[in-house]
């Protein structure tokens, strides 16, 4: 018999953690006002997984290769549209992977890092 149980247990455990995180985030997104630290933290986590390999870890970015999101205008509609549909054949579309709650959390994180 192949040593299978251990791995199954591992993936199950990780899946549980991930599910728990997603639930928390959804709850926060439903009630939060965008300044909620939990929402920002969830956005930060989603950013690290989905966005940081182009926009820079912790949103640190020289701003010439991909936009410096700390300077993204205070325009939530534009942010949602760009994340969902992509832009200029460079920014890939994420509408099939990220739901409104996740994009909302990303927006909270981006807004929290805005430079004047």
């Amino acid at each position, binding site marked *: 018999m192949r040593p299978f149980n251990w791995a199954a247990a591992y993936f199950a455990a*990780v899946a549980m953690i991930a599910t728990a995180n997603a639930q928390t985030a959804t709850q926060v997104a439903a009630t939060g006002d965008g300044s909620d630290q939990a929402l920002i933290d969830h956005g930060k986590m989603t950013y*690290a997984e989905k966005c940081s390999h182009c926009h820079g*870890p912790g949103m640190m970015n*020289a701003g010439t290769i991909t936009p410096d999101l700390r300077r993204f205008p205070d325009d939530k509609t534009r942010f949602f549209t760009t994340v969902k549909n992509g832009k200029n054949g460079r920014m890939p579309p994420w509408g099939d992977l990220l739901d409104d709650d996740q994009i909302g959390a990303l927006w909270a994180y981006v807004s929290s890092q805005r430079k004047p």
Partner: protein
Amino acid sequence: MKGIALAAGLAMVLAPIGARAQTADQLVKGATDTSNVLNYGMGYNLQRFSPLTQINKETVKNLVPVWNYSLADDRSEESQPIIYQGVIYVSSNSATMAVDVKTGKQIWKTKVEYPPETPRIVCCGIINRGVAILDGKLFRTTLDANVIALDAKTGKELWREKAADIKEGYSMTMAPLVADGVVLTGVSGAEFGTRDFIDGWDPATGKHLWRTYTVPNPDEPGGDTWKGDTWKFGGGSTWITGSYDPELNTVYWGVGNPGPFNAAGRPGDNLYTCSVLALDAKTGKIKWHYQFSPNNPFDYDAVAEMVLADIKIDGKPTKVLMDANRNGFFYVLDRTNGKLLAANPYVKVNWASSIDMKTGRPVETDVAKDAREGKKVVVYPSILGGKNWEPMSYDPQTGLAYANTLAFGGHYKTEPATYKAGEWYVGMDLTDLWDWGTGPRGHLKAIDPLTGKAKWEVPSDIPRFSGVLSTAGGVVFSGQLTGEFEAFDANDGKKLWQFQTGSGIEGQPVTWEQDGIQYVAVTSGYGGVYSLFSGDERLAQIPTGGSLWLFAVKKPQKVAHE
């Protein structure tokens, strides 16, 4: 550039009449063919050394641009030009191009298209590293994991084969290798939970000949180095072109990191991640392997170039393979059997104290132990390694390997990793990655392969991510992310010349001679792994914008007026 044009006209060298299809035999002789650049690495040995001497320590100060060709692309330009009979073949993520050396004019350009979702699963830069050539055909990979063949005369697509699916996290950026009549390609994707491989294709038809997985299944040799189903997401990407020894008829190919980075879930050595494979090109069969970093948590991907040379060890001529590994050790192996001959640190290393010469395994420190147990550690080298992908050059005249190395460490802390097809799967905290220190972040080093010690080093505040080229003229070429293309004295590292190319250099310089003139070509255009991941705001005034530069030595003025 009047002087150059006139000198070219006066040259007594006659161009071959009519373009001949380029042959497999020419590929074998690529390292000594000074009139073309036919191989990735300027020879199957990947030495990136040219016997040419027209550009030398005296004349290099007179190096001037001949022309500049726009790649009309604003991603990182990491393509190594291939040159055959006066035509440069260069690639970007978005096109393949043929350019006339004499005029700098485009002969043809063929666009590459891929689904807009593709960049989601490309970890470290939207790039392409170049084409391979054989028998009137060019071979390249595409970001969405297709392998294509183009007619070298017209750019017309001759065949296209899908190697893998972006939905599963696979992408392709590497330049193919043509060896023993087979087109070999590798894939990227180990950051997305893929199980990776090397493919062999028929150059004439694109027929798939073989696939060798770099992560074995439980029934294959090495399968017992993975627990449970972890092999299915085990990574082991193959995103840099292998080297080839035609006499031994063996291909040497580096294998990338295991997935996820977090090693807690995948106990075991995790073969063949962080290893080099010796392969039979015709069948893909593994002849031997050597693993640099077993069960590695730190992304010490071993894909970077496996340079082949024949050197004397204890007075005995030895066929070796050299690797400045991302794990911080410089390895020399006997390439006939994979036996370890030397392994010494060439940058600061704290995850292992040494390499056990008997077993070939690293002697790990508490840093590696703590990292595996989930503690936050400061590790040297960082996940970008002691040297990243940018290829070094080996100069057989000085016996030194010239490499752009990295001088910073990283903060490392694991997190749980959840596999979802086509999504990031690393299992580490990506919010606080670097331990920069206060000194320069990189050096161009002239490394003694057998000791790892540098004969000289040239620091750089922002590290260099350019390929390196050395020549019998005693000159070493490299480039800066801030745009300067540079020449150094091979013996002492003294800077002899530089030229601002307009964007950062992450390209691979090459040199050849045509009609009596020695040329150097390099791409400019930044946007690769350091610029994306470092958050180095000192690069804020460096524009993107890809182009190909050609340089030659300006003749004395009197020649121009003859």
